[in-house]
Each structure stands twice: as C-alpha cells, then as structure tokens.
C-alpha cells in the first residue's frame, strides 16, 4: 500500500535492450521491493541525464560513460550507479570483398558513424593507426543501413544488437568484415544506470531496492528469453520478434562481458571507466577532469550479494 513512486527513463523506445526492466515490472519485483515504478521510454530528442538531474525521473538508463562524463562536466548533479554494457556495444562494419581490408584503408573512404560518442571511438582507433580524421569522409549516420547495403558507404557503424542484425538480414554474415574498438585498446562502456545526487544521498535504500529488483528481472530475462521478449512486445507490439530475440542474446553478451563475467551485471569497472575518462579528456569531449569517485558510485551495486548479480 505504501509503495514509493518512482520512474525509470530509458535511453530509447521499448525493445529487448531493456528487457530486464520490463520483466521485473511485469513480475512485480519492483512492487515487492516497495517501489511503484513507471517505465518511461526515451526519444530522439530527450536526454536521460537531463530528466534525471531535474528530478523529472528518478532513475535513468542513459547513453553511456560518455554522457555521464559530459553531464558531470556540465555540472548536472547525477551519479552513475551501474554500467550495463561492459564493452563497446558497436563495431565498424565493411564488406569482406570491398576495398577496406585494414584500418589504413579507411583513408579516402566514406565512413558513417553516430556523432553521439561513436565518432570519438572511431577517431581514437584512427589515431592509434596514425590516421587523421580529415583523411577520410566521416558522415553522420542515418537510421537506415541501406546506404551501406547499396554500396554507397564503405564503412558503417553498427551496434551488435541492432544494426548488425539489420545488415546481416540483408547480406550474408560471412561477406562482412568488422573492426572492434577493443582491438585498438579502446573500451567504451555504455548504457549507464543513473540517479540524481540527491537520490543517492537521501534514498540509498530506494536505489538498492531498485537495483535488486532490476537484477532479478534481468536474470529472469536471460533465463527465459522467449518470455522476456513476450513481455517487451506487450509494451511494443509492432516489433519484430526475431530481431528482439537476437537483440536479447547480444545484450546478454554485452552485459556479462569483461569484469562483469565475474562480478555480475551492472558492475562498475573502475579501470574501464578511468580509461574511457582519459580517452574523452584527450579528445576534448570533456573540458576538464571529472571527479570519478563522485560520478560513479559503485557502493549500491556492491552492496548486493554477488549471487544476485550473476545471471
């Protein structure tokens, strides 16, 4: 009866990328923890950090470490309480039989990428190889993968769980070659769980309860992917089931990669965060060093028994 009202703002519309939260809500795990949770989808022009900082939403699944740094840099009072995708969730894709064999071949080619952080990863990879960004044509990437499929673009950026699937559904998987950021020493954790500083300070129990329920939801989602996809599709019935099932598989891989394999989901890998921070500082994405201890508070996730964190 005395449920506490709270909301979770996603970074995008309902899809299997967020399955665990929907499953937890559907199975009443939040209620069991005393939370009356509303899940608010994101949109193309919404910034999760902003909505959480102003108190419009209590929790957020926001862009990633990059957006957390940027928000802290601009003085938004938010704290990251968990990291979902432990490794860079996107890759750079080209045709196996195309002109691009190595990263050196990017020179003079048309490369599309998102200017929401992925562009910095690309720049980092190029810099590692001694290539300057103006040696190739970097263009903002549109929604559609068609320009790549049609051969109008040489290299395209793709998330493992979404665009890569779209491309594979339109051309054979073995005709593709991929470039992975980690191969160039760059790791870019994304999909960060955030709360307002005030929430972290004043309602630590609420935060912990939210994490406990969410973890249960994710565990269930991975245990029963079909059921999880059903739950997601109840919220967004027009989605393509096959794609959602693929997405859930890939998301599981991203959420349990790296140190999370050992420490469990939403683990904050301080080293990975520090590496990413230095990387963004170097590329001017943030103007000055960010106080990492204030920006990333691992205490909440750590307070939960390890067994509950592991899928």
């Amino acid at each position: 009866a005395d449920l506490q009202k709270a909301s979770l703002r996603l970074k995008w519309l309902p899809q299997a990328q967020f399955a665990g939260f929907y499953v937890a809500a559907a199975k009443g795990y939040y209620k069991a923890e005393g939370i009356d949770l509303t899940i608010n989808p994101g949109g193309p022009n919404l910034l999760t950090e902003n909505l959480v900082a102003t108190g419009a939403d209590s929790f957020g699944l926001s862009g990633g470490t990059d957006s957390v740094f940027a928000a802290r840099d601009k003085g938004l009072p938010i704290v990251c309480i968990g990291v979902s995708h432990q490794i860079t969730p996107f890759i750079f894709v080209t045709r196996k039989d195309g002109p691009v064999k190595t990263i050196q071949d990017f020179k003079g080619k048309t490369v599309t990428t998102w200017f929401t952080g992925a562009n910095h990863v690309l720049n980092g990879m190029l810099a590692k190889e001694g290539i300057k960004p103006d040696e190739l044509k970097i263009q903002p990437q549109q929604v559609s993968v068609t320009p790549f499929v049609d051969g109008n673009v040489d290299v395209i950026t793709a998330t493992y769980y979404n665009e890569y699937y779209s491309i594979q559904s339109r051309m054979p998987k073995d005709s593709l070659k991929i470039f992975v950021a980690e191969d160039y020493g760059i790791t870019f954790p994304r999909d960060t769980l955030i709360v307002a500083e005030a929430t972290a300070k004043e309602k630590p129990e609420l935060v912990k309860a939210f994490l406990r329920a969410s973890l249960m939801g994710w565990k269930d989602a991975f245990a029963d992917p079909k059921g999880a996809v059903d739950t997601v599709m109840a919220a967004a019935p027009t989605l393509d089931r096959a794609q959602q099932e693929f997405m859930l598989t890939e998301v599981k891989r991203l959420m349990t990669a790296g140190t999370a394999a050992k420490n469990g989901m939403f683990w904050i890998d301080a080293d990975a965060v520090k590496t990413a921070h230095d990387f963004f500082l170097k590329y001017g994405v943030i103007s000055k060093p960010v106080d990492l201890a204030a920006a990333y508070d691992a205490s909440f996730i750590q307070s939960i028994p390890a067994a509950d964190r592991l899928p």
Partner: protein
Amino acid sequence: MSRALASPSLAVQRGILGAVLLVACWEGAARGLHLPAYVLPAVSDILAGLWSKRATLIDAAGYTLLEALVGYGLGCLIGIGLAVAIALAPALRTAILPLATAINSVPVVGYSPLILLWFGIGVSSKIVMVAMAVSFTILLSMLAGLDRVDRRAVDLMKSFGASRFGVLWRLRLPTALPLLLAGMRVSTVRSVIVAIVTEMLGAHGGLGWVIYQAVLQIDFVQVWAAIFVASAASLAFFGLIGFLERKILFWT
C-alpha cells in the same frame, strides 16, 4: 476611438515594451530562481553563447535556410503549377483535389520517416519535405484564389475575344495573387520549421542538427542559441515575403 488616435510609433513602443517585459521576466526567473541551464538558461547567457558560437550558428543557419528556400521555391512552383493545371483543365480537379486534401490533412512529420529513408539524410530529404509541406498550402490557397474570380469579369474578357489562357493570364492570376501571397507568407515559417524538424531526425548539418547535437552534449545554452537563430531566420524570411507581398499587392 483609441484606434484612430494610436500612432504607429505607439504600437511599436508597446511592442518593444512587451518584448522587454518578456525578456526581463525570463532573465529574472532564470537568475532569481537560479535555474540551471538545463532547465532554462538566462537570456543573457543565451546571447553570449550565440555570440561565442556565431560561426557555427551562421553556417548552420545558412544550411537550413538553403534547404528551406530551395524547398520553398520548389513547393511554390509545384503548388502554383498544379493549381494552374486545374484551372486550365477543370477535369483534373476531381482527380487532384480530394487526394491533395487527404494528403494535406496528414501531418507532414508523418511522412518524414519515409522521406528520410528514400532520400537519405542529406539536403535532398529536407528539400523534399519542405516542398511537400509548402506545395499543398500553395495549391489550396492558389486554387481558392483562382476560384474567387468574378464570373462577370471572365465574361467581359471573353467578350473581348480573350482565350482561356488570356483570361488566366490577365484576370485569374492577378485575382489569385492576394490569396497566393498570403499562403506564401504563411509557408515561410513552415518551411524553416519543417527543415529543422527533419534535420533533427537525421542530417549532415543545419540548425536542427546543431540542436540535436547540443542536446546530446548537454549544451542547453547552445540549444537555445540555435532556437533564437532559427526564430530570427524565420522572421526574416517571413518579413521578406511580407514586404514583397505589400509591394506586389499595391492595390489592396
């Protein structure tokens, strides 16, 4: 009574007073309530941000205005062309008009996903979107204008031996001008907005693109600076067409 006495300069004074009051309230709220920039930046901060980012913003405004103007021009041509075709061949009316009304009652933004898919995220998709939005307005207002012609004036022209084209050129087109230009004036602001909206869904540049990027970079001062520029650009475009309208329609 007060209407006759109010001088235009008083109207201008009041307009300025209104603007000043608005800016003062805005500034006062932002400063007085210590609103953070991500809630509402102060006007002075926005103007400062506008100045410091002027190069980017001018570029972006140029980009957006180019899309808007080309799309606008294209839309006007298509709208006028269709209306004239209907005027010359009335049989076309039953074919075109219901379709145009139906398409027009669907919000333009509805088409944006398709147009972006078909025409890519470059300038062409924006131009197409603007042209679509503009051409329907122009078609409908131009048709209303052409239909407004006095039947007796048409008879008069015919009695002089004028052809269908002669009637169109010397009588129906001038008669349609006031409504056409009113439609064109309204369409100016629409064309800039449609360009920006489409840019926000995917673009290589432009004010919509700047706004989209600035939101993601949590630079709300820049968001508002871009909005200010967009508004100024729209007003300038609106003013220009309004000015031309008054020049052209000297007789009204």
